[in-house]
């Protein structure tokens, strides 16, 4: 059963999506409820998966590269001297499970939150949303690169239509820009994946896209630095646009502004995380040397992005665009934490992904509630809404505080760990080899925290406080809304608020789940850095494995022996594996 639970989680929305075509025209309410039920069912399945994961972890079930709940169906296989091993491989570790849970948690809220906003072509709308869920969940669970790439790319299609059909006035331009940007990056990503597969085939004799096997390659130093550099750039092209990292972020503000509320929430909440997740899952473990070498470059871009986007957010008149720019700034923190290459920093980055998904997603929902009533998001045309809409004011302030990292709410924990990881990166204070960044990197990044408060509070002040200011003939309650938030809207926002509070006060379960995965993830870096003095030439894998055993806290990779054997053969110059 545990073998198939991830498959169920991934494809259950597809079942829901197909069932949506059953109700005849005129039964839109049944349609909406059906979509909601489908997402709730997926949420239940996800919780079951979390439970099963925890049980396996408690039972100490051995894992392949830290993945649990694994499932493997061979697909393209060939035996013999030139083996091919591409398959339907699923599995989750702490990192992907956290993001999967985030996806399944946000989707019902997104669907429920769309009930009043979407009035045309509802069947197609919910159908696409559910398809999007399949793609996102699949991308987080896939442990075969080809499968990952398929899901990763497939997220584009539903979102392209969601923006292009249900978006704002400039929806066509936004959808096109979004699509072209991301596809352009993905081409490089795909080239990188193919090259990696080819290289693996050349060195080990197996054409594999199995993530665990490729990770072993990277960890054991089978990939020369130059190869790693090119691969890193190729992967970065794909992921950096998705994150988005400065300077390829310009598609995001437009896409966010034009997308329907649900699109923005999913985009900010989950899709951007595919970029950071990609860095975390592919670049860092498979390309440890290049990651280490290029970390300062990524960090510089992240820091520029943090400050640049924060300043740009401050001068926006459109609230939604402001939140969109804030996303760019926040994701900069996330990238900084990832490339501190320290457990604290990466834990922080993973938490940051979740936190950003919750608080920014919620901010988009709140802005959506506002927009449905006032048909504008211009700070010059709105003001003093706190008096008219106390509930909206409460949630907007709450998520603002979460977003600017108030201790006690979720944002702080991630932010603090990111900065801690960055600050201590150059030291061995946590018993790990020194990383590429250091205390000096924290100072400009921390400026971003000040600016974060500046623009968010500026927005709150403009929109919520001061004398009441609203466009004529508003608030528009024609779509069955009330002046203040309806009970449905409160019920959509309240779970997110509770999650924010919980993660701020007691993040321990998440940190506990994530940490082993991170230790596993940067084991390559540790191993490679530990033998840095002789790093210039291709290392002898056995000597590495014996001289520098994996970090005592990291669970030793069960395939280490085999992997070492393989690379031993490889360094011997032969491509034959017995």
């Amino acid at each position, binding site marked *: 059963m545990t073998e198939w639970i991830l498959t169920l989680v991934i494809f259950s929305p597809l079942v829901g999506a197909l069932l949506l075509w059953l109700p005849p025209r005129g039964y839109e309410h049944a349609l909406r409820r059906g979509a909601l039920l489908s997402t709730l069912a997926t949420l239940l399945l996800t919780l079951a998966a979390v439970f099963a994961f925890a049980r396996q972890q408690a039972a100490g079930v051995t894992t392949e590269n830290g993945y649990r709940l694994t499932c493997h169906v061979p697909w393209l296989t060939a035996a013999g001297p030139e083996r091919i091993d591409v398959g339907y491989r699923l599995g989750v570790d702490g990192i992907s499970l956290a993001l999967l849970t985030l996806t399944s948690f946000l989707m019902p809220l997104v669907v429920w939150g769309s009930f009043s906003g979407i009035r045309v072509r509802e069947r197609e709308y919910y159908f696409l949303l559910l398809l999007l869920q399949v793609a996102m969940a699949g991308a987080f669970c896939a442990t075969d690169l080809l499968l990952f790439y398929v899901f990763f790319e497939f997220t584009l299609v539903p979102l392209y239509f969601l923006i292009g059909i249900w978006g704002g006035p400039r929806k066509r331009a936004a959808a096109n820009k979004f699509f072209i940007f991301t596809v352009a990056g993905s081409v490089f990503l795909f080239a990188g994946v193919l090259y990696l597969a080819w290289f693996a085939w050349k060195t080990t004799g197996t054409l594999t896209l199995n993530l665990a096997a490729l990770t072993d390659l990277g960890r054991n130093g089978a990939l020369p630095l130059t190869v790693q550099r090119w691969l890193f750039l190729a992967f970065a092209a794909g992921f950096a646009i998705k994150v988005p990292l400065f300077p390829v972020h310009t598609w995001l503000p437009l896409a966010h502004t034009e997308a329907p509320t649900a699109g923005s929430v999913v985009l900010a909440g989950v899709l951007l995380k595919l970029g950071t997740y990609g860095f975390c899952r592919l670049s860092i473990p498979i390309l440890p040397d290049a990651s280490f070498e290029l970390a300062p470059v990524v960090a510089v871009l992240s820091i520029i992005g943090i400050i640049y986007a924060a300043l740009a957010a401050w001068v926006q008149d459109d609230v939604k665009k402001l939140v969109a720019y804030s996303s760019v700034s926040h994701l900069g923190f996330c990238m900084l934490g990832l490339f501190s290459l320290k457990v604290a920093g990466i834990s922080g980055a993973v938490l940051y992904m979740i936190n950003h998904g919750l608080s920014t997603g919620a901010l988009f929902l709140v802005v959506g509630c506002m927009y449905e009533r006032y048909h504008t998001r211009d700070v010059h045309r709105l003001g003093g809404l706190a008096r008219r809409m106390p509930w909206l004011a409460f949630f907007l302030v709450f998520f603002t505080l979460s977003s600017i990292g108030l*201790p006690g709410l979720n944002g702080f924990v991630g932010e603090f760990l990111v900065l801690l990881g960055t600050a201590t990166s150059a030291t061995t204070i*946590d018993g790990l080899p020194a990383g590429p960044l250091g205390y000096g990197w924290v100072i400009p990044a921390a400026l971003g925290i000040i600016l974060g408060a500046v623009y968010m509070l500026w927005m709150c002040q403009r929109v919520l406080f001061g004398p009441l200011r609203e466009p004529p003939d508003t608030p528009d309650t024609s779509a069955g809304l009330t002046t203040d938030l309806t009970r449905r809207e409160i019920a959509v926002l309240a779970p997110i608020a509770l999650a924010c509070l919980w993660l701020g006060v007691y993040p321990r379960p998440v940190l506990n789940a994530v940490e082993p995965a991170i230790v596993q993830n940067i084991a390559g870096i540790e191993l490679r850095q530990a033998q840095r003095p002789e790093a210039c030439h291709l290392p002898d894998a056995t000597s590495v494995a014996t001289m520098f055993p994996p970090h005592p806290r990291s669970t030793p990779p069960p395939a280490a022996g085999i992997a070492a054997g393989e690379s031993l053969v490889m360094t011997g110059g032969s491509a034959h594996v017995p």
Partner: protein
Amino acid sequence: MNEHTLDILRTCSLVILLAPLAGAVLAGALGRPLLRGATHWIVILGVAGAVAGAFVVLFTLHGTETGPTTAALALYQWIATGAGTWFAVEVLIDPLTAIMLVTVTGISLLVVIYSRDYMREHHHPQRGYERFFAFLGLFVFSMCALVLSGNFLLLYLGWEAVGLCSYLLIGFYYQRPAAAAAAKKAFLVNRVGDFGFGLGVLLIYLTFGTLQYGSVFDMVAAGVTGAGDPLPTARVTAIALLLLCGACGKSAQLPLHVWLPDAMEGPSPVSALIHAATMVTAGVYMVARCGAIFTASPLAMTIVAVLGAATALFAATIALTQTDLKRILAYSTISQLGYMFLGLGVFAADTAIFHLYTHAFFKALLFLAAGSVMHALGGIIDVRQFGGLRRLLPWTFILFVVGAAALAGVPLLSGFFSKDEIIHHAFEQHWLLGLLGLVTAVLTAFYSGRMVFLAFFGPPRVPEGVHPHESGHWMLLPMGVLAAGAVAAGYVGVHAFDQPFHRFLHPVFASTFAAHAHGQFAVAHGGLWAQYGLLIVSGALALLGIAAAWFAYVAQPWLPATLKAVFVGAHQTLWHKYYVDELYGAVIVRPLRRIGRFCVDTDDSVVDGLLWLITAVPRGLAFTFRALHGGVLQSYAVTMVVGLTIMVLLVLAL
């Protein structure tokens, strides 16, 4: 300290934290639908619980004469660092904590009681009554968390949480643009301070590998880093200065003082509680708590002392010209906080905390009395619009005078003892610091007198249509208690009574501040002049300042206007608060917004333009080839024929 005592302390700390929090949550959840005008009860109960807990802590610690008086208790694990270590939610209880707790919760309770009437108009709760009490409860919780915290991370939590409460309460009348702007300003200026504070916390972790008070202070005292290397003084200085940055923000010291006067847009009880008695003293508390770090760096200590003295004088001069009663009090608060920093900087932390404690009484009293005036006059607080309230508001008048006298340093009131002690220690360190303290003392006496004479003396004068009425018991009683404190609270620190306050605190500072101070206890053994000379001088100066104010504002009322006309430049500078706000606007805010616009323009033109250029290549190619795909069948046919011919020729040729 035995297990039983630890259990008591653990229970107390939980009560102190959770009772106000529960009050706040219940007030927030049930206030509007259920409790309404009775919401104050639930918060009063919560805060009273905290007061009880605080007193139990005080007496428990006071009772344990033997053994260590410090208890560190971990409640639960909060954030993992990835090294298998966690930052815990833990509390540290020592005499300093106990005194802060008693002061904070005690004043809070009085202010919450006072607010019951203050937040009503014509006996009906104001709009947002429930919200107000919920925020107050939340504040008490946050402040207690700040004071109780046992590591720097939790300190940071409390630090930011009190800032949040301050933000929410300054902006309580959010429909007034000034209030909304002041709230934002307070939060942001504090964020600037917290930027330094946060970096300091990270540097502490980087240096020592832990954030727990005890371990960090032990390592500083031993002069080693977490890795066992010798600790460079430069590193300690850097940490101390970064922490000081946070203290400057929270305690409104130069150059981050700009938010506090604006914070007076909040309701008066908030000004009394948060912006006078408790939250703004967090910086003082923090420096005192981190004494080990600060005293290890002579440079940092000098900066603390100079900063404190400079701020004290700077703010006192501004207070001379302002006309908004609450703003005068705000500048006075900044000035008094400057005194506390001066005290810390001259190694007299116990005296600084003593001043913190007496100041809490008389400044809270002054703000509450000013609030009483405001309540009576329908929200007007500018002394140019009223005067001679002595007969109209007799009780408020008396209470205000008591507070002002204590602030002015009239002999034998609480403010007199603590301030004199600070000046005394300042003289021990450097005569210039002492002199600055004395000058400030004269100015303080002058503006205190000015407030009283302008507001309460002269012919009765009230704005039109306002019928002043004396406040009710709910407001007068808490003020009475505070007035008693303003008169008598100082005697726990008087030499004549053997300074029980200082002796109680002594174990906390014994190895830090006290170990570095010159003749900390020499005072008691010195000659008669050394012991009482300064006391007499500063007392005389206080009376002189008040007399001068009386002369200028009662005896010769034409004098201020004449002075204003003669020294127009100086007056304008003081009236505009040395133009600091304008400077920040011109140097920081506007340039940053300009850069922001530039960033957006760059996004729209340069980055997108570059990308357009890149896409221009395929687009150009496509444009060329488009001519071939015009949809004209003949051209396709021609192309086909030509192509086929070429291919056939090629094949034949090969």
